[in-house]
């Protein structure tokens, strides 16, 4: 088994040491470099060529959006690399900026989630394969932000369709949505067709294309 090579960027001592300890014991992860600021992160990526970058949003020098800028740079310089973005807050603005050039190989997790090693590993594995993960709280915040617009087509969705949409945006399969809502897969498919029809979106089969569709739509609304 070839371990997933990870570069970690985090300026908080506590979170850095906590994540380092979590990942160092995992045989499927090779933590190749740990850095604390934007310039060291870019340098680490160039020299270590990681499979996945696990990074906070804010770090020196400006403490604003370094992680997001690093992810944008990675799209061009290292398109095969995945990024797991960590944040303390569920910020719809950051989420949309992070995902506007596509969700392939991208995950956005809340820091409170990194304490769950299984969730963190799942996100690292998923983006290493080109998949996408969005923390459910962030999906909630995005959907809420989207439906606040008076004329938003999201307001045409039934409560059940809202629930299905939120689960879709997390990248869940139809089977997983059916299980979560205790519905048949057939019923889920009907809801999805109705949602996409109401939102004016083309039907999409793959999970992360569906996330992309949902987010692009929400980006238009904000």
């Amino acid at each position, binding site marked *: 088994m070839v371990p997933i090579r990870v570069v970690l960027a985090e*300026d*908080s*001592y*506590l*979170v850095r*040491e*906590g994540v*380092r*300890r*979590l990942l160092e014991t995992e045989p499927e992860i090779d933590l190749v470099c740990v850095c604390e600021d934007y310039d060291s992160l870019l340098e680490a990526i160039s020299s270590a060529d990681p499979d996945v970058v696990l990074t906070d949003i804010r770090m020196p020098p400006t403490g604003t959006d370094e992680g997001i800028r690093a992810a944008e740079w990675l799209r061009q310089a290292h398109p095969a690399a995945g990024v797991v973005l960590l944040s*303390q807050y569920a910020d719809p603005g950051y989420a949309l900026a992070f995902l506007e050039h596509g969700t392939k190989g991208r995950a956005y997790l809340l820091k*409170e989630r*990194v*304490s769950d090693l299984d969730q963190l590993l799942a996100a690292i594995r998923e983006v290493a394969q080109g998949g996408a993960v969005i923390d459910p709280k962030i999906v909630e915040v995005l959907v809420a932000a989207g439906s606040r617009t008076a004329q938003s087509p999201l307001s045409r969705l039934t409560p059940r369709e809202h629930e299905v949409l939120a689960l879709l945006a997390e990248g869940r399969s139809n089977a997983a949505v059916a299980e979560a809502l205790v519905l048949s897969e057939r019923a889920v498919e009907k809801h999805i067709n109705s949602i996409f029809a109401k939102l004016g979106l083309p039907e999409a089969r793959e999970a992360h294309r569906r996330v992309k569709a949902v987010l692009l739509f929400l980006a238009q609304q904000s």
Partner: protein
Amino acid sequence: MTTRPVPVLIVDDQAFFRSAARAVLTVMPGFTTVGEAYSGEEAVTRAAELAPELVLMDIHLPGISGIEATRRIRAAHPGTAVLLLSTYRVEDLPAEAYDCGAIGYLHKEDFEPEVLERLWADHEPVS
């Protein structure tokens, strides 16, 4: 004269943060972890059992809050100092945080060896 390391009790409901706080203390020769607790009630019990000199207390705990646990520990053990930790910005701290007897408040993002050294060196001795 060598002083023995300050015995510390770590209180946080997340194993991740307890582990990370241990990592901070491990690199500080002046401090040693003597125990952990994951709730306010457990903190009060462990403080009585272990007699720490310093308690690192997360504000957000299940059951009684970190602030209430601080009050009870300070009342029962005047020689034990309590440092509050959380992810609040200072201006968002609840009012009770200021008069519960804690020696101070530290944002988890700022929690690192140098900061704890300075805070401990500068704090007013308790009791």
